């Protein structure tokens, strides 16, 4: 079975986003999300390793009527595993976390992460108490996941095994204040600048 290709996969996951709010973890997931189209309601990270899921939690609690999607990598998620417990306890219905798992630290020379040695993030998320968890390895499973991603039927965590391919970088803007301000203006309106 050939491994899933991350760029096409992320395009497919974002095709039905509507007005969903998207956080992208640093490195390859940020490039993948930007490759699918730069968007004011994307918040791609350039740092904050281990923080993507928690940014998603704060956003999901603040915006319970919107769907929040965090797309991050296995190395990034491994750095903040405690967040799985924190999120499970808060249990926001509108938060989905997708880990693109290439089993590598892709930006630093493709060194293996723990997921290359059997660490199962989806089962860790399930054991923490996250309502819906998925291990995804095939296109059929991607299609099944896609139907649940924006359903708002309880916190969701998906670990998707992807090919460890080297791809050209597709960079989002890197001024953090710009990314924050355009996100808030798109979500909250121009008055957000006067909060």
């Amino acid at each position, binding site marked *: 079975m050939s491994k899933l290709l991350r760029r096409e996969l992320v395009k497919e996951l974002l095709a039905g986003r509507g007005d969903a709010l998207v956080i992208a973890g640093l490195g390859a997931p940020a490039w993948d999300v930007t490759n699918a189209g730069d968007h004011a309601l994307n918040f791609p990270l350039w*740092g904050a390793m281990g*923080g993507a899921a*928690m940014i998603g939690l*704060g*956003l999901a*609690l*603040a915006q319970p009527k919107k769907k929040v999607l965090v797309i991050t990598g296995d190395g990034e998620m491994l750095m903040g595993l405690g967040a799985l417990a*924190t999120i499970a306890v808060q249990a926001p219905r509108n938060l989905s976390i997708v880990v693109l798992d290439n089993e590598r630290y892709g930006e630093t020379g493709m060194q293996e992460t723990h997921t290359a040695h059997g660490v199962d993030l989806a089962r860790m998320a399930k054991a923490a108490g996250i309502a819906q968890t998925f291990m995804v390895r095939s296109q059929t499973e991607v299609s099944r996941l896609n139907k649940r991603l924006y359903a708002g039927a309880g916190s969701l965590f998906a670990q998707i095994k992807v090919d460890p391919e080297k791809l050209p970088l597709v960079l989002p803007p890197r001024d953090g204040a710009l990314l924050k301000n355009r996100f*808030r203006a798109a979500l909250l309106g121009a008055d957000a600048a006067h909060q």
Partner: protein
Amino acid sequence: MKNIAESTWPDEVHGLLKAAQVRQVAIVPDAGHARLIKLCEKDKSMRVVRLTTEEEGVAQLAGAWLGGEKGVLLMQSSGVGNCINMLTLSIACQFPLPMLITMRGDHGEFNPAQIPMGNATQAVLEAMGVIVKRADKAEDVTEMASSTLRLAYNTYRPVALLIGQRVSGAKDFRKLTRSVPL
């Protein structure tokens, strides 16, 4: 030393948080914050989020602000060390982040393991570019907390208030054990 239960600052600071419309209260507990945490938990306008490590709170409150909500991070000084790299997020993106920090490893500390981080708390925060205020008397806490909240929200940056161990009192381990004579 003034008893924590007799201090009014936790009630006053809760009032400040309410007036500022703080919605998300991210915490790793400390004895010095016990009453404030209880007040926030009882307040239906606030969501108290228990964290596994303090840096989660830095990230959470960035997300809260993206979504239009204000938050505050409550922790003890040992938790500051856990936050250092994540503070990059608040600084690089200009997220407001008020942190109310009760000091350990400070006035009258008993536990040697609290000293290194307690002693370094202010220096490492300032090295990251965080504005640090300090209150060493109970009667100063409310006013300093008010200025901390305003600085953070009005000027979009992380601001820390260190609440000295003279205010909350050092934990007396000898009173908690039967094996060591007082």
